[in-house]
């Protein structure tokens, strides 16, 4: 019988980051010759996600891969899976709760701690005022990115700017923020394709690239081009492809041979800067990086 | 109070403005028990506005309003209903999607049961509806049928039957016969007659002078928001009344031209 693995995450299939995760999972499924189903609620909805996990449990797959941004809300469903004897691997978020819930291992890094690392790096560059642009306020995973930066950015100020994902609105709001508060010296996007690229465009249009720098979470071809051209400082890479690929591979191996790594796998964050950017562009355009 | 001469409803110097429009400009009127008061007048004379004010739909801009000998103000149609004034509106005030029974008892539902189990007495309501409609000459197949599926005339009859059933003291009918066929009209006029004889006061609005003459005891003619005069049945001829209703315009020429049958 075919080995079936179900992945339930909190990221919609249309989210750029999560579409890469999904691509990784699908490729891993192909490579390891297992059937992978990717499921996610259409918005950041913990209640719906726990129901999706329960639906996965009912189908008795060989393994379940989950992201775990709210261990309180998802805990009971995960425990149900464990009770049913289905191995669970968590990825992206939820590292702290993994062992308590009986999860085999965790791949990836907590958004909050990733944010801290970014904040520390920015502080190290001598920046003073970060504008953190959140295109989906209320999505706890995104909120944690800004919160982490705030915690890591010792001695400086972080302002959160909520927007929608509409490019015109994002550009106009960045321009408004930059004109009304001239102390801002870094614009940080939480998504390179949705926000980072727009921020680069605004700073270029306003002609103050020497004063205001741009950085962003995640990768996108155009943003990497901007990094390579020196218009942006760096892109924060959590290697979503790995976050998707590895758990599926581990699950496949586990179901076939009963092997599983003994410890968590940290997939990020790493920083893509000017030197490395050019090589990643092509892979990014295909939804791999 | 039970004297024939104590008015059920009296209106003194009523005015009603809608924004810049002066719809009623000093109306006085009296309704006594056991009589049909016909309210006559041209289109836009203010008849509907007057009875809407009587029924609590509009609040008067100024003027006194005496019900059963006491000065009263109605803040909503419910107040008027509670004071025993039942109205058949020109627009009928019925909900097409609701059943005949539910329309019939709308706002005055019969209840049965106690405490949390208090509920509408549907059987009683259905029975009363069927009975009352039968009395007015319509045999409905199913009281749960939606009012929207009835013909205009049938709908008019439901509204009239409802008002009569709940009309404790005064029954107001705004152009009840305008959409009705000959048979239904006769039935409604006969009904008005009966209601009067049972001791209620009736206000009857119509554009048809013959209908007015058939049932009316007194005729109050409105013109452009004012009372033109009130006439006892014996004191005025049908032609004089018709001329008054037309707002004093000379109808003779026209009427002659068409053979004098209007």
């Amino acid at each position, binding site marked *: 019988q075919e080995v079936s693995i179900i992945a339930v995450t909190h990221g919609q299939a249309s989210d750029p980051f999560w579409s890469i995760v999904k691509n990784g999972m699908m490729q891993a499924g192909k490579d390891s010759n297992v*059937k992978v*189903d990717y499921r996610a609620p259409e918005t950041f909805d913990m209640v719906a996600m726990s129901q999706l996990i329960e639906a996965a449990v009912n189908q008795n797959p060989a393994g379940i891969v989950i992201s775990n941004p709210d261990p*309180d809300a998802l805990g009971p469903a995960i425990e149900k899976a464990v009770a049913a004897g289905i191995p669970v691997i968590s990825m992206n978020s939820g590292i702290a709760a993994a062992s308590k819930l009986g999860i085999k291992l965790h791949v990836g890094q907590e958004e909050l701690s990733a944010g801290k690392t970014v904040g520390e790096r920015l502080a190290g560059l001598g920046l003073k005022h970060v504008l953190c642009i959140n295109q989906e306020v209320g999505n706890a995973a995104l*909120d944690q990115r800004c919160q982490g930066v705030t915690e890591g950015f010792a001695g400086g100020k972080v302002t959160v700017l909520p927007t929608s994902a509409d490019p015109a609105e994002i550009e106009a709001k960045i321009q408004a923020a930059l004109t009304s508060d001239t102390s801002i010296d870094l614009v940080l996007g939480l998504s390179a394709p949705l926000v980072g690229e727009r921020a680069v465009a605004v700073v270029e249009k306003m002609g103050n690239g020497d004063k205001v720098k741009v950085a962003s979470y995640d990768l996108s071809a155009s943003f990497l081009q901007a990094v390579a051209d020196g218009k942006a400082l760096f892109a924060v890479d959590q290697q979503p492809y790995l976050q998707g690929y590895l758990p599926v591979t581990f699950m496949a191996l586990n179901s076939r041979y009963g092997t599983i790594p003994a410890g968590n796998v940290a997939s990020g964050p790493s920083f893509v800067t000017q030197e490395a950017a050019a090589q990643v562009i092509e892979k990014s355009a295909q939804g791999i990086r | 109070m039970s004297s024939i001469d104590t008015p059920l409803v009296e209106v003194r110097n009523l005015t009603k403005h809608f924004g810049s429009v002066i719809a009623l400009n000093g109306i006085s009127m009296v309704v006594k028990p056991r009589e049909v008061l016909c309210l006559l007048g041209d289109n836009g004379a203010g008849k509907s506005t007057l009875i809407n004010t009587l029924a609590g739909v509009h609040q008067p801009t100024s003027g006194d309003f005496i019900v059963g000998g006491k000065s009263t103000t109605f803040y909503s149609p419910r107040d008027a209903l509670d004071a025993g004034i039942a109205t058949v509106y020109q627009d*009928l005030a019925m909900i097409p999607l*609701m059943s005949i029974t539910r329309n019939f008892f709308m706002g005055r539902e019969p209840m049965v049961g106690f405490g949390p189990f*208090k509920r509408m007495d549907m059987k009683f309501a259905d029975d009363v509806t069927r009975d009352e409609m039968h009395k007015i000459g319509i045999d409905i*197949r199913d009281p*749960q049928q939606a009012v929207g599926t009835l013909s205009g005339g049938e709908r008019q009859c439901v509204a009239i039957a409802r008002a009569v059933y709940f009309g404790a003291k005064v029954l107001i009918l705004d152009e009840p016969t305008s959409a009705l066929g000959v048979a239904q009209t006769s039935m409604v006029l006969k009904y008005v007659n009966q209601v009067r004889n049972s001791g209620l006061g009736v206000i009857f609005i119509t554009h048809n002078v013959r209908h007015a003459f058939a049932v009316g005891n007194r005729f109050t003619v409105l013109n452009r928001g004012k009372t033109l005069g009130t006439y006892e049945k014996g004191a005025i001829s049908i032609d004089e009344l018709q001329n008054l209703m037309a707002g004093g315009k000379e109808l003779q020429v026209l009427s002659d031209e068409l053979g004098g049958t209007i």
Partner: protein
Amino acid sequence: MSIVADDKIKKTPADERLKKASVATTLLRRPELGAVAGLVLVTVFFLLTANPSMFTLAGIMNFMAPAAQLGILAVGASLLMIGGEYDLSIGSMVAFAGLVFGAALVVWQVPLSVAILIAILMAVVIGVVNSQIVIKTGLPSFIVTLAFLFILRGLTLVGLKWASGGATQLRGMKEAAAGSPLTSIFSGDAFQGLFAWLASNDLIAKFPNGTPQVSGIPVEILWFIVIALLATWVLLRTRFGNWIFAVGGDERAARKSGVPVVRVKTVLFIITALCATLVAVLTVLDAGSTDARRGFQKEFEAIIAAVIGGCLLTGGYGSAIGAFLGSIVFGMVLIGLTYTSIDQDWYLVFLGGMLLVAVMFNNVIRKRVTGER
């Protein structure tokens, strides 16, 4: 008074101008008919395409849980829609009520019963505010409650940051509520003893470790059923129900007939807010946490469920049982995809397609049966 001669009777049961008249037709004329048809259609679809585990006991509980949460909202929304108004703020209300309830539990640390009371009070206040603005200004409720969709969602964000000290997630409600006798009414599964007994006698499936796969009926499903029945009773058998239909059918006519329109609308807005609060309490206690996205877009799902259930968008027509069935249809479509092998990327296409098919099918059936055109 038998003043009517028999020959005056206009319509006799055997009217020659009617082609046929059947008793079944009357039964089938109920607004929820279409929803039943939609439910059958969707069930058949999933029976054919989905993993058979979808229709095991566990699978049914699984899609009934979201259906119940949506359904509680949809029943409230359907009453309001029948009354001629919308409330687009219920989704945000779920989040806001969750915040208030959660903050009461973990920040002010009041007992569960008091926290629920505070949440209910807040729901009443918001229901009154919504209704008063709609009634006083005469603006369409669509636009007024749309404003509150934004306002309540925004207040939730602000409140969460305040309550949690900077995060958009508030946790620890399960621990705070533990021990209260009310907990079992608002969270967990009911009839656990029964299910354990059934499992031990091998009457229902169990996990390898011997516990039953379904440990009981989630309380939200019971709430859902109770509320749907209650709403149906109110609509069909009480004076207030008659008033709801009247106000939604024609507000002016209802007022003229002595229906207290303002009171009816106010109560309806309060009921919707209370339904949202109930869902908030249920999900917060279930999840033990709340966040700023709770209830996102639930207002539309509730309206969709009510429409699938036969409510007219123009008011005055519909049923609570229809909304109940509509929610189950929606819940099945929502979760059902997980049991099929359809790619998640197609999820929205699938959802939209099913919605369209269900509503069209519903419509065709209703027209066919009622002969309406």
